[in-house]
């Protein structure tokens, strides 16, 4: 398979690009909800529109009413989400959650609502400030014919708005994923606004009782499902980062062609030209690594895990470079809330933390490579 988008994928990209630029634009979505202090941090109307276009069913099999496409296609939508900083449950619900439950009975229960754009899902993995999915302290004890969950989670994106939360916990048999419904007794949800004005949540589980059928997959066998979830989420976050970085670069290069100082366009200064060219190079490489990781996930290749870490780390670094150079090359105006470049810097920071930052993924790559 060549490492560029095929004709169908290019059509999807063009459609997603014009839709997102129009309906998902910063003024219409991000600023709109932020300035109204919206408790969800995203618009349910737009989520409905995503469903109407089929986006929410990209990773859902055709037999289950979805489009039966792959991570490359999900990434295409995410890159456009990134470009426009469009707040949306897409990554958590239509990518991470769908990927985790797709071969389980939970699919039947939740996919119709996701396909309709009614249902929002959240992922509860992290327990401390850093992403450490290999050490889960949350306990799930057998109780009655089900389980009792106790512990804390944080950085649960859209956790306060979710109808269903996928929770990683430890049982005596090993790591296990549970699907926990909204409003479960003993579950306390604290919505927290993050730097990019998206809404995360801190969850406290105090002996939250769930039935045995809340288990996703098999008890004690959650590691594989968690790995699949994280692979999808990380590749998706990488794609969104590529979008964030590309839009920040485009804005900045545009500014270099427009702002004058010393009687010249600032884009004539070689010091800035070379930095812009370096940034372009880094983003091109990040895009290639991300597409490669997505293709490998879609083909279930042996090296997919390592490539996903490469993509998440590289996309994270490159997007961070883009937003930092972006603010710097805009000068004072780059520091104002009125101007959009700063919003990209905030989103980049959040996406870098999500599912592991570049340091986490460089370390993970080293471990996978045996050093």
């Amino acid at each position: 398979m060549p490492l560029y988008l095929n004709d169908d994928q290019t059509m999807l990209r063009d459609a997603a690009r014009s839709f997102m630029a129009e309906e998902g634009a910063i003024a219409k979505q991000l600023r709109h909800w932020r300035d109204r202090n919206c408790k969800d941090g995203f618009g349910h109307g737009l989520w409905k529109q995503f469903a109407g276009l089929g986006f929410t069913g990209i990773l859902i099999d055709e037999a289950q009413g979805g489009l039966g496409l792959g991570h490359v296609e999900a990434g295409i939508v995410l890159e456009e989400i990134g470009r426009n900083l469009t707040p949306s449950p897409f990554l958590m619900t239509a990518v991470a959650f769908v990927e985790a439950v797709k071969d389980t009975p939970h699919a039947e229960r939740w996919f119709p609502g996701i396909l309709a754009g009614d249902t929002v899902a959240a992922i509860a993995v992290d327990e401390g400030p850093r992403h450490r999915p290999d050490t889960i302290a949350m306990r799930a004890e057998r109780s009655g014919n089900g389980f009792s969950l106790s512990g804390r989670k944080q950085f649960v994106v859209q956790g306060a708005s979710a109808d269903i939360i996928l929770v990683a916990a430890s049982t005596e048999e090993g790591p296990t994923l549970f699907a926990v419904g909204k409003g479960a007794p003993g579950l306390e949800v604290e919505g927290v606004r993050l730097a990019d004005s998206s809404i995360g949540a801190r969850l406290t589980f105090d002996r939250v009782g769930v039935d045995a059928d809340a288990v996703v997959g098999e008890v004690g066998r959650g590691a594989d499902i968690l790995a699949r979830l994280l692979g999808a989420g990380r590749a998706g976050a990488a794609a969104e980062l590529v979008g964030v970085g590309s839009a920040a670069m485009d804005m900045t290069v545009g500014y270099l062609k427009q702002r004058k100082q010393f009687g010249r366009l600032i884009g004539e200064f070689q010091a800035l030209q070379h930095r812009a060219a370096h940034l372009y190079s880094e983003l091109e490489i990040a895009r290639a690594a991300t597409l490669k990781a997505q293709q490998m996930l879609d083909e279930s290749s042996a090296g997919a895990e390592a490539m996903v870490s490469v993509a998440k780390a590289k996309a994270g670094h490159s997007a961070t470079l883009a937003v930092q150079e972006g603010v710097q090359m805009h000068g004072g105006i780059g520091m104002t809330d009125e101007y959009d470049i700063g919003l990209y810097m905030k989103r980049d920071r959040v996406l870098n933390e999500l599912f592991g930052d570049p340091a986490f993924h460089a370390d993970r790559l080293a471990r996978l490579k045996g050093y």
Partner: protein
Amino acid sequence: MSDSEAFRGEARAWLEANCPAEMREPVRDETDLCWGGRDLVFKNEAQRRWLERMAERGWTVPDWPERYGGGGLSPAEAKILKQEMARIGARNPLTSFGISMLGPALLKYGDEGQKSRYLPEIARGEIRWCQGYSEPNAGSDLASLQTKCEDKGDHWLVNGQKVWTSYADKADWIFCLVRTDPQAPKHHGISFILFDMKTPGVSTKPILLISGSSPFCETFFDDVKVPKDQVVGEVNKGWDVAKYLLGHEREMISGMGLAGQAGAALGEVLRDAVAADPVLRADVARFDVDAMAFRAMSERFIDELKAGQAHPAQPSMMKYAGTELNKRRHELVMAAGGSDALEWESDRSRRGKAAREWLRTKANSIEGGTSEIQLGIIAKRILELPGT
């Protein structure tokens, strides 16, 4: 079974049957490479057999047309062949400026006579070429070159000097940029000319590099007579040919940023050295992220190139990123090697192999146009930033 799978099976079987075991071992140093040429002495029998068999199939230049000695493969087939060669660790049968630089330029700009004369010789490795671009006063500002070429009616007369001419003392022929119109603006008076290094008036003087080897020369032209049919493209329009060729040269040099052997991230090789040193391990891990990401970029670049989708200035990006990456790789190899890697002549260090390679890589971001020049090209041609 699709056509491409059928081709994969066919290529795999053929390589299995024809690639000698010695030619599946990693390249240890320059002397393992086969550069071809009139005076070629094969390092061993396996090298000779491998070149002959591959040349016979046209697979030294898989995607050139068959009538010029190529394999006539489609881009998809050429990619499969490359993958199959990488799978068994097959060496390139032939490394040459003819293949990576002159050939593509001739295919685009050469006339029929030039193509059918020079291309098959390149494909079979019979003639070794060198590149006469740089001059003492024309480096980054290549178009200011001064080597004079006068029209003497039945021949051209060349006078002047080139410098940094890689392997000029070993090459059979040179492709050379010369000034045919000294009055015209600098880009418009240049021609692209080919001639035999044995022509009377051509002489070379090797230059010693910091790595201790002398792979390049000063090259002098003193009343060199060149037949009229050896200018490629139109007279005074050589700059177009020169730039097109530079794109291919940059692709070739950027290839050096690859892990060498496909799949080999650096950390696996340096495992023992980094085990006790967490900061070095972190540096290597960050490098591996960049190396593997760049390998994906190379794959994407080749795929886009073959599909005609790559930006024409994209080779500058590849050259810049690939060479800077390769320099980083060798800094890490030296760090991991510690004082062992510093021994310049001992057998233990294989005569300072790591150190000499490390020094050699510093030229990657100079030769073929410096990193600064590539960044300038990206800024102007891809990002379309203003200014001269």
